[in-house]
């Protein structure tokens, strides 16, 4: 029971990553609409930011998985 609770709490990191990626993508599409000629560098920055933001969700997922498997 406590293991399941711990894993569920660990997976809550997904909230932060989801909000972050959504915000970054919204801003990036705004920026691309305003300056289509800079679309390439904006896309690169977006990819980097999404990868870094997503890492937090992945950490939570890996921790939750480790909790369930190694219990």
């Amino acid at each position: 029971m406590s293991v399941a609770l711990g894993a569920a709490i660990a997976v809550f990191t997904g909230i932060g990553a989801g909000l972050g990626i959504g915000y970054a993508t919204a801003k990036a599409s705004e920026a691309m609409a305003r300056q289509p000629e800079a679309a390439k560098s904006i896309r690169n920055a977006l990819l980097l930011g999404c990868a870094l933001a997503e890492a937090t969700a992945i950490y939570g997922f890996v921790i939750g998985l480790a909790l369930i498997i190694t219990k």
Partner: protein
Amino acid sequence: MTARTGAAVFPALSPCEIYRDCRHVPKGNEVRSLSNIQAALTEKLQNVTAFTIPLFGGIPVAESVVVSWILMALILLLVLLATRHLNPDHPGRLQSLLEMAVDGLNKFTEENIGVHWRHFAPWLGTVAVYIACANLSGLIGLTPPTKDVSVTAALALTSVFLIYGGSLRFLGVRRGLHKFVEPLPLLAPINILEVGIRPLSLCMRLFGNVLGSFIIMELIKAVMPVVAPTFFSLYFDIFDGLIQTIVFVFLTALFTGDALEVD
């Protein structure tokens, strides 16, 4: 597209067990079927040992290593076949395609790494081909090697050697070490922490993504084994696998370019 359904080829993985458990458990007994799913999932997450070399008391060879060998053989064969009749004067259709790919890789490396790009492009291209093939290998019924944390850890370690080795090699030891106290000496602890954080995050990102999509695909197959896996595997296997390839190579190139930057 019979994506992933070929996983049944491996007897050790036996995906049928989940389906059987879900269907034939009597009603009102969901707890048992849930724990069965958990047990089957845990079984699939084990990294299977393919065989053991009878040397020095037995060296276990993991399934991911064997799948990597298969992929290496396939890639080598494809490369040898594709580059058989190269002609600089009359490039064929295939040769033009290959030249475009190599050109794109070179341009990408040059943009992100700068003047010393030529030393890094071959390695980045090789890693991109390997990770892409490894992530997509689920489509032909193999277990993706990148589902094994040892494989992604090895890839991340080579990346970090490339980053800091390149910095010491091309900037010299003095300036390479000086990178650690830039932009402020106050930030030196954070820069040193990054030596450990970068490979950890590269490793966990790739591993977590591949494992996550693997688990989700297994769950989907457990719930609805017929039509749904095809559509979901389009996203989880192909799109996610290719995006993670790009992210890994892009981050490595970016970090390397960062380490080689001269003010």
